[in-house]
């Protein structure tokens, strides 16, 4: 990731060729500069346990007529979840056209 970055107009560098230059190299079947090949595999671990409660989305907070306090006051101290929004289902008025 810490490769030198060259100006676009200079000779080809290991990275940061322009899109046009890259497409030309692909069309010509040439080797692409700086191509990185990785062999990464899944570690099959468990995620770190969550410690933060879910924050209400801005539109959920608005629907509950709550004022949204400044975010800095809420780091790590997010309030408990408000009541669940009313269960919604896809309105029957939705219908497709042309099929």
């Amino acid at each position, binding site marked *: *990731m*810490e*490769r030198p*970055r060259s100006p676009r107009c200079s000779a080809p560098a*290991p*990275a*940061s*060729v322009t*899109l046009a230059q*890259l*497409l030309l190299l*692909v069309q010509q079947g040439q080797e*692409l500069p*700086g*191509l*990185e*090949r*990785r*062999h*990464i*595999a*899944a*570690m*099959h*671990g*468990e*995620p*770190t*346990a*969550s*410690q*933060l409660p*879910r*924050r209400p*989305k*801005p*539109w959920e907070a*608005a629907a509950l007529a709550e004022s949204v306090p400044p*975010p*800095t006051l*809420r*780091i790590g101290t*997010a309030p408990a*979840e408000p009541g*669940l*929004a009313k*269960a*919604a*289902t*896809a*309105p029957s*008025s*939705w*219908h*497709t*056209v*042309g*099929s």
Partner: protein
Amino acid sequence: MSAVCGGAARTLRTPGRHGYAAEFSPYLPGRLACATAQHYGIAGCGTLLILDPDEAGLRLFRSFDWNDGLFDVTWSENNEHVLITCSGDGSLQLWDTAKAAGPLQVYKEHTQEVYSVDWSQTRGEQLVVSGSWDQTVKLWDPTVGKSLCTFRGHESIIYSTIWSPHIPGCFASASGDQTLRIWDVKAAGVRIVIPAHQAEILSCDWCKYNENLLVTGAVDCSLRGWDLRNVRQPVFELLGHTYAIRRVKFSPFHASVLASCSYDFTVRFWNFSKPDSLLETVEHHTEFTCGLDFSLQSPTQVADCSWDETIKIYDPACLTIPA
């Protein structure tokens, strides 16, 4: 990676990595995930970048490499450490920001590039949808190794899959087949097919304050609004971009404000309820601009990423000055 604070935008340079998607954390203010690919996603590997703001601008908190280009990213809605990416090799990857290495899990079922991934927004569900060049959408429970369901019907590349923020089990998809489709997980099938453009549709999103309203962005340079109660014609059309629109998102704070980014290098902000809908055109990138997100904590903050190897976080004037 070097952080630069130039002008109003905080910038992180990502040498050798081209930005495809940017997503703010739903938990930590200012934390941003960016899915990137080497060589514009055409060849090589990919990197997931996790950024935090600091006094100097932006600080790289973590980076995770993957074997192929990463095209989209979504944060978990029930664990602040977890996110999922999707990549050019047809796989999804689950990452843990509390661990230095990863991924923890890889889900490989799609047979071609996976261009979109989204974690459900409604409470009581923890589901992920992915959309692929193989013309299928897959539904995942990240705690289960295999997909729960495959949705077929699109007749071309699927570029975008987004959950409804209001209706459980409902998501939208946008495709190169020029349709926007609305799907119901419970019915395991499509609800609505909307021939939304006469061009490839690269992006779609749901309004956060009207459960019937969506927007599409297409190769024809237009944004169109769709009311699902009557989809015979768009409820609005926004013109101004000069090349394909790569991504569009509704504001989490303003019912009629949205942002779009484009292959014309610009990010544009719109208010579709106003006669002069175009609020602002941001021209701070020098290549295709592919990733875009609104902050969930700050009503004025936006992030974007581009193929010019930069990620930017900024407060556009149109959002900071009351309309």
